[in-house]
C-alpha cells in the first residue's frame, strides 16, 4: 500500500471541505462574540465601577490563565446541571467567544490607553454626553489602530476550533478522524486537514501583517 493514495485523498476532500465550513462558521460566530464582548469588557473596566471592576478583573484572569478545553468542558457538563443545555456547536461558539473576549479586551484597552489625554479633555470642554464621548471620539480612534491585533486573534480562534472535537463537534479534524477510522488510513485525512488550515490562515495572516505595516508607516 502506498504511503499516499491520491484517489483516496480526492475521495475524502469533499467531506473535509464540508466540515471546514462548520469550522469557519464557528470561527466567525465566535469572533462576533469575542469582538463585541471584549469591547464591553474593555469599556466597563475603564469606567472603574466598584465591585464590578474587581469581578471583571478576576473573570478575565481566570479565563486567560486556564485552558480553553477545560472551559469548553465546563460549559458542556456544568451548565446542564443548572438547567441550561446548549448544543455542542453553541458551546463551541460561546466557549471560543468568551475565551477570546478576554484577549480582545486587553487589545481594546491598549488602544483606548493610547488615545492622547487631550482628546478626553476636549470632550469634557465640549461637555459631550458620556455616550458620545465613547461612540464619537474615543472608539473611532482606538478601534482602527488595534484592528491588526484583533485580526490575529480571529486567526488564532480559527486554529483552536479543532479542540471542539472533544465535545463531538464535527469540524475538519473530527471529520478527518471519522474518515480515517472507516479505512484505517489516517495519513491523507490529517495531512489534508493540516493543509486546509495552512491554506486559509497563512494568507489571512499575511493580510493582517500588511495592515499592520500600513498602520506603522501611516
Amino acid at each position, binding site marked *: 500500500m502506498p*504511503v499516499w493514495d491520491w484517489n483516496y485523498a480526492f475521495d475524502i476532500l469533499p467531506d473535509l471541505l464540508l466540515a471546514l465550513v462548520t469550522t469557519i462558521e464557528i470561527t466567525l460566530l465566535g469572533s462576533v462574540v469575542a469582538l463585541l464582548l471584549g469591547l464591553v469588557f474593555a469599556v466597563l473596566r475603564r469606567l472603574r465601577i466598584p465591585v464590578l471592576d474587581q469581578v471583571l478583573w478576576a473573570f478575565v*484572569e*481566570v479565563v*486567560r*490563565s*486556564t*485552558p*480553553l*478545553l*477545560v472551559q469548553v*468542558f*465546563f460549559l458542556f*457538563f*456544568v451548565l446542564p*446541571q443548572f438547567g441550561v443545555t446548549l448544543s455542542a456547536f453553541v458551546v463551541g461558539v460561546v466557549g471560543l467567544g468568551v475565551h477570546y473576549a478576554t*484577549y480582545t479586551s*486587553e*487589545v481594546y*484597552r*491598549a*488602544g483606548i*490607553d*493610547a488615545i492622547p489625554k487631550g482628546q478626553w479633555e476636549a470632550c469634557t470642554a465640549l461637555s459631550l454626553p458620556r455616550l458620545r464621548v465613547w461612540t464619537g471620539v474615543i472608539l473611532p480612534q482606538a478601534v482602527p*489602530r*488595534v484592528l*491588526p*491585533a484583533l485580526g*490575529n*486573534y480571529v*486567526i*488564532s480562534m480559527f*486554529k*483552536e*476550533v*479543532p*479542540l471542539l*472535537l*472533544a465535545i463531538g463537534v464535527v469540524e475538519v*479534524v473530527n471529520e*478527518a*478522524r471519522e474518515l*480515517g477510522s472507516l479505512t484505517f488510513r*489516517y*495519513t491523507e485525512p*490529517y*495531512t489534508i*486537514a*493540516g493543509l486546509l*488550515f*495552512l491554506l486559509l*490562515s*497563512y494568507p489571512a*495572516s499575511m493580510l493582517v501583517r500588511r495592515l*499592520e505595516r500600513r*498602520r*506603522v508607516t501611516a
Partner: protein
Amino acid sequence: MENLPQIVGVLSDGIPETVIATLGGVLLTIVLSVAAGLLLLSPSRTVRGVTRVYVEGFRGTSEVVQLFWIYFVLPVLVGFQLLPLFAGIVVLGLNHGAYGAEIVRGAVRSVPRAQYEGAIALSLSPAQRMRRVILPQAFVEMLPPFNNLFIQLLKSSAILALITVPEVTRQAREVLIPNFGADTLLIFGVTFVIYLVLAALITLVMRLLERVASARLGRRPSRAARAAARAAGPTGTEGVAA
C-alpha cells in the same frame, strides 16, 4: 461537597503529567525559539527561507492537527510510535517554538543599532558581539512575551488529554465526570484552580528572571513592556499601539 477529597486526589494525580509536559515543552520551546529566531536573522537567504517554512508551517496550522499528525500519521511513515507524553512534548515545543522564534527575532532587532556599531568599534568578534552586547539586552525584552507564551503552552498542554496522556484535564474528563456526575461544578472548579496556580508560578519565575536580567543591565523592569506583551499576546509580536 463530601467528594471533594477524592476529586482533589484524582486531579492531583494528573499534576505531574501536566507539569512534565509543560516543562518539557518549555525547554524545547526555548531551544527552538533561540535557534530559529537567530536563523531568521541570518544573512543567507536559503537559511532564512527554510526557517520561515518551519515558523509559518507551525503557526499556520492547528495545534490539534499537529498533535494528531505526529501521534497517528508519523508512525505510519517511520514505523514507530512515540509515547503519548513524549509526542505531546514534541508538539508543544515545535508549535510554541515557532511563535517564540518571532519573539527572539523581534527582541534582537529591537536592540538599538548603535549597540552593534559600538561593539564593532570595540572590535569584538561577531560571537562576542552577540553574547556580550546584543543578547543580554534582547533577553530582557523577550521575557514578558515569553511569559505569555509559556502560559499559553501550559494551557495547550490540556490537548494532550486527546491522545490519552493522563494529565489534569483528562483526569477531570475521563475519570471524574463518569464517576461523580453530580459534582461537575466542583470538578471543574478545582481544575481551574490547579491551572491558575501553575500559571501564577510561571509568572512568578518569569518576573524574577526579568528583575535579575534588568538589574544586570542596570535597568528596572518596565511596566510598559509587560502591558504591551499582554495586549499583543503570543500571536502578535509587533506592538499594538504603534
